[in-house]
């Protein structure tokens, strides 16, 4: 059904061992309650080589593929979704450098993120609106002086914004008469004119703090360009696909992790002198949950394999098809995560609603997966645009 080789199975085993050892339930309640970014746990994940495994070895990655990232995401989130999300997402901001950066930028930045202490956040989610045909720029080009852009505006809900050192964002080329392109920047967040406004904790993903990043006449010359400053729609799509596939992997973990908890519970909880597991209704529910998990896993693994085989040279037509598959994987995994974690709460009854049982958090994290990495409408649009 899903064939994993020994090496891949070992990744899963190691990831689960790490997660069980490091994701302390008490800490999870505290960090979730206060919206704490788990620096220490992320650093341990770095030491053990769990961060950026699909980056090439020359940049201190492990030279693996998106497929392995997906099974890693799944394994971590299965043990604890909020920690898992925070670990996997700590490196998503560096992906644009891996995909579009110049050789020097890759050599300089990727090791800092993979092994060092630096964090890069990205705001490329703010550009999804162009897929939907809208084009309301969050960041406006006020003027161009001696080749430097003067920028104003606000990037909203940037994940890891409050704790990041660097930001990657882009503006649609229509503002500078290059309709086919996006102009992309890599900037330090302590730059003049940049203000970081941390947001209050949301429903889920609570260990990934968010911020609005405000630009007040920020002046950026071409030394702040990522690569030569311009990327095409195709490249942006590849980035989005990489983000969507990680989220899909996390969703698999959420679905499976919450199902594990529910299964453990219904096997021991008794009402009416019977184990909950022995009620036909419970059996029907659990079987439905198992089906949802496997469906989501198959579609996601398949899409992850396809995405792993793309390169910068992959044709637009082929890439669109793969991005569409990845989008389907994200939509269906997020749905599975939400529905399965919802039923898990239900099976635990009142206990499921209590934070200390660590089931409701799966559900809150699942809902956020539908909203992030392109909300579900943008995801669907990528599917439709490929089909018609």
């Amino acid at each position, binding site marked *: 059904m899903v064939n994993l080789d020994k090496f891949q199975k070992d990744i899963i085993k190691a990831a689960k061992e790490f997660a069980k050892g490091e994701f302390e339930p008490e800490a999870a*309640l505290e960090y979730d309650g206060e919206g704490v970014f788990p620096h220490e746990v992320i650093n341990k994940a770095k030491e053990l080589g769990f961060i950026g495994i699909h980056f090439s070895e020359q940049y201190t990655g492990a030279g693996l593929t998106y497929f392995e990232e997906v099974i890693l995401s799944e394994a971590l989130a299965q043990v604890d979704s909020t920690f898992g999300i925070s670990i996997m997402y700590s490196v998503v901001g560096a992906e644009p450098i891996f995909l579009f950066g110049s050789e020097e930028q890759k050599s300089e930045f990727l090791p800092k993120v993979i092994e060092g202490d630096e964090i890069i956040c990205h705001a490329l989610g703010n550009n999804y609106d162009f897929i939907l045909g809208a084009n309301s720029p969050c960041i406006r080009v006020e003027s161009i002086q001696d080749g430097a852009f003067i920028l104003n505006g606000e990037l909203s809900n940037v994940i890891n914004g409050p704790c990041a050192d660097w930001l990657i964002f882009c503006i649609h080329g229509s503002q500078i008469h290059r309709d086919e392109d996006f102009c992309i920047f890599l900037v330090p967040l302590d730059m003049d004119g940049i203000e970081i406004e941390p947001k209050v904790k949301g429903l889920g993903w609570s260990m990934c703090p968010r911020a609005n990043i405000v630009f007040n006449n920020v002046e950026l010359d071409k030394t702040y360009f990522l690569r030569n400053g311009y990327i095409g729609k195709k490249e942006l799509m590849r980035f989005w696909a990489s983000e969507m596939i990680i989220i899909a992997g996390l969703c698999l973990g959420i679905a499976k992790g919450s199902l594990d908890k529910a299964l453990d519970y219904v096997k021991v909880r008794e*009402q009416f*002198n019977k184990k909950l597991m022995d009620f036909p209704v419970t059996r029907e529910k659990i079987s439905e949950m198992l089906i949802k998990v496997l469906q989501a896993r198959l579609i996601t693994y398949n899409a992850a394999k396809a995405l792993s085989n793309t390169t910068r040279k992959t044709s637009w037509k082929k890439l669109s098809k793969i991005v569409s598959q990845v989008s389907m994987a994200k939509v269906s995994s997020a749905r599975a995560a939400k529905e399965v974690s919802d039923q898990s709460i239900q099976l635990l009854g*009142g206990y499921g*609603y*209590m934070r200390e049982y660590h089931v409701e958090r799966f559900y*809150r994290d699942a809902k956020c997966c539908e909203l992030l990495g392109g909300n579900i409408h943008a995801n669907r649009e990528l599917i439709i645009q490929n089909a018609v």
Partner: protein
Amino acid sequence: MQILPYKKEHHEFRKRLREFCKKEVIPNIPMWEQQKLVPKEVWQHMGRSGFLCPTVDKRYGGLGGDFLYSVILAEEIAYTNHSGLFASLHSDVVVPYIVSYGSEEIKQKYLPGCVKGDIITAVAMTEPDAGSDLSSIKTIAQDQGDYFVLNGSKTFISNGINCDLVVVAARDPDIEDPYKAMSLYLVEDGTEGFNKGNKLDKMGMHSQDTAELFFVNCKIPKKNILGQKTMVFLC
């Protein structure tokens, strides 16, 4: 088209209640959610403004209204987007037990306070091992001549911290059939042997003080039984 037969008085009640919520409830919700509790004074303010127990008879200070008032109360509190001030549980779940099964003495003793908001009520049925299957509760009420003595623990009890009066489901240990053994008892806050546990930390409803309750050799007067003994599963 109006499906429910609201009259002018209902609309006025709704209007006044919404105004009350706008002024006294909504601005304070962020604070209550953080403190995980609604201050008791708010209940009193609400009661004195005539919004609690709207169906209780005028004899006990109530409005003597029909169930549409209860519907309005539930709707308007829900509309404020919080559930800490669980006025419906008090007015339409717990107090009706007293109205329906309390003796005249009990009604006179408690109902006016329930209406005014001086007495906040809770109902304690669920236990750690007994949820859907209520018949399997372990809390017992032993008949000791002048008193009933309660022993057991309850969980997930709404208004559990604020409550001044609790309707408790307990079994008579001398009756074997669980469906016949159960009765409802009134326990006042402050009764020796009745202890409130910690507030439970929940997914949502943060300002709602859901809690565990414990009864250890808790003596209550005989008259605090609601209705006939062992009738819980019959009515």
